[in-house]
């Protein structure tokens, strides 16, 4: 069954009929599995990965280390929620090591990100300190490599 999701993860537009052939299962069964996964949240969403730089539009991104004070009963969850609810926050994680939360923030320009940090994030009561790293260049995201040299066909057209 995992194979169905592996295929969808690679190509969200693969049709149930195509997947059924690939995994050797009836189309109905594949449809049922996908429907169920969509309902129970195994499949969260179908998205496209866009290289915005190709359209001359690229967001500024920053990785922010956040040190926070955990709270009785809820640990980091409550403060994490306060933070990840902001639409500027693209990803948020609790991490081990010298700081507590790692968050990825997106903005249209540097100003937008710095005002998010100074006006919204840093003033939060339980936030002790922040360190902001602006991302300078994207090489790979979600397993996809950006700005690959134009795919050259390295194979000869016919080989024995």
């Amino acid at each position, binding site marked *: 069954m995992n*194979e169905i999701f592996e*295929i969808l993860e690679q*190509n969200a537009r693969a049709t149930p009929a*195509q997947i059924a*052939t*690939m*995994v*050797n299962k009836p189309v109905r069964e594949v449809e049922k599995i996908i429907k169920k996964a969509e309902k129970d949240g195994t499949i969260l969403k179908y998205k496209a990965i866009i290289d915005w730089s190709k359209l001359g539009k690229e967001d500024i991104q920053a990785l922010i280390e956040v040190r926070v004070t955990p709270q009785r009963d809820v640990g980091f969850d409550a403060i994490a929620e306060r933070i990840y609810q902001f639409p500027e926050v693209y990803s948020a994680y609790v991490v081990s090591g010298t700081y507590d939360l790692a968050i990825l923030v997106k903005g249209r320009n540097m100003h937008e990100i710095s005002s998010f940090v100074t006006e919204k994030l840093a003033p939060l009561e339980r936030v002790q300190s922040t360190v902001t790293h602006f991302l300078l260049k994207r090489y790979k995201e979600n397993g996809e490599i950006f700005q690959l040299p134009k795919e050259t066909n*390295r*194979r*000869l*057209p*016919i*080989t*024995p």
Partner: protein
Amino acid sequence: MPNRESTTNDARNNLISQKVATLPPSGIRKFFDLLSSVEDVISLSIGEPDFVTPWHIREAGIYSLEKGYTMYTSNSGIPELRQELANYLELRYGVSYHPEHEILITAGTSEGLDLVLRAIINPRDEVIIPDPCYVAYPADIILAGGVPVLVPTNEENDFVIRATDIEARITKQTKAILIGYPANPTGAIMPKKEANAIIELAKKHDLLLISDEIYARLTYGVEHICFPSLPGMKKRTVLISGFSKSHAMTGWRIGYVASDRRFIEALTKIHQYTLLCASTMTQMAAIEALRNGDSDVDSMVQEYNRRRRLMFKKFNEIGLPCFEPKGAFYAFPSIKATGMNSEQFAESLLLEEKVAVVPGTAFGPCGEGFVRCCYATSLSNIEEALRRIDRFIKRNQPTK
């Protein structure tokens, strides 16, 4: 009037040995020239993985260069690599080879094949091969001074060579049987029952079995039969294989031969005077492939299997009957219903629909009526190619 030019040509031709001069060029070569003249082709005629060698294996090759491993290795190959291979063959197929005396590292399986044929053949010795088969089999036998004896195989038997058909062609000159399963070009695998009949035959007539198992890892839902692992067969089998298909390492040129000591010694004699040793960097990469490359092989096989199912199903849907290929990465559909022969079909398909397939006749006379289609290409390529083939056969249906 005597033609001076042709006399000169004849004289020149004499510089080339008669054996080579009369050796027909590969049927694939002929098609290559035609193919090169057409642009934007979807090619199902490439007999190699579309994956790049997994990064950790490439990185091991780079690292070996950084460390300055740029000298010859021993003729037989780096001891660690031979040891890893011995472990691998023992663990996977239960056949144990002494890493020092029974394994030789070669520059691809092709070198191994050439070595074994040159090591065993006396002039006019006969070597039995299936028809159709990999293009190099008959050519290498001829180059070694032997005579290829073709045993027809057909779709009724899923293109598996049959012991009874072999036996009918055994003569006093027969030296060896050369087979390769899973098979190029058909995708056929060797069933246990037939394998047992073949080994009985080899024993009965005291023949050597040369088993080309380069596609051993690419089987789908069936277990690969490793000939030397069958009872009493280790000492009369020369196993040739390599990393090209399993680890997507075609361009590295790395393979091996495993056999009884007397054969390995004979092969090593030729190898030491010709290749000396397989490329050092490549051997280092192969060690990494054996140590940490198993999961890469599994995921590539899983991907090939998805494509295989798609191609097999589509061919049967569009009316080109195809037996289910259970190994390698080829489908071998019959195109007889179109009324064309293999070459006409492949040529017209290429010119009209820009899809390249290899005419079955490139692999032997019994390939007539079939074409080889490789599914080591993206799913979208396979789908588009099959759409075009469907259009092509609908347009070219023979008039009743």
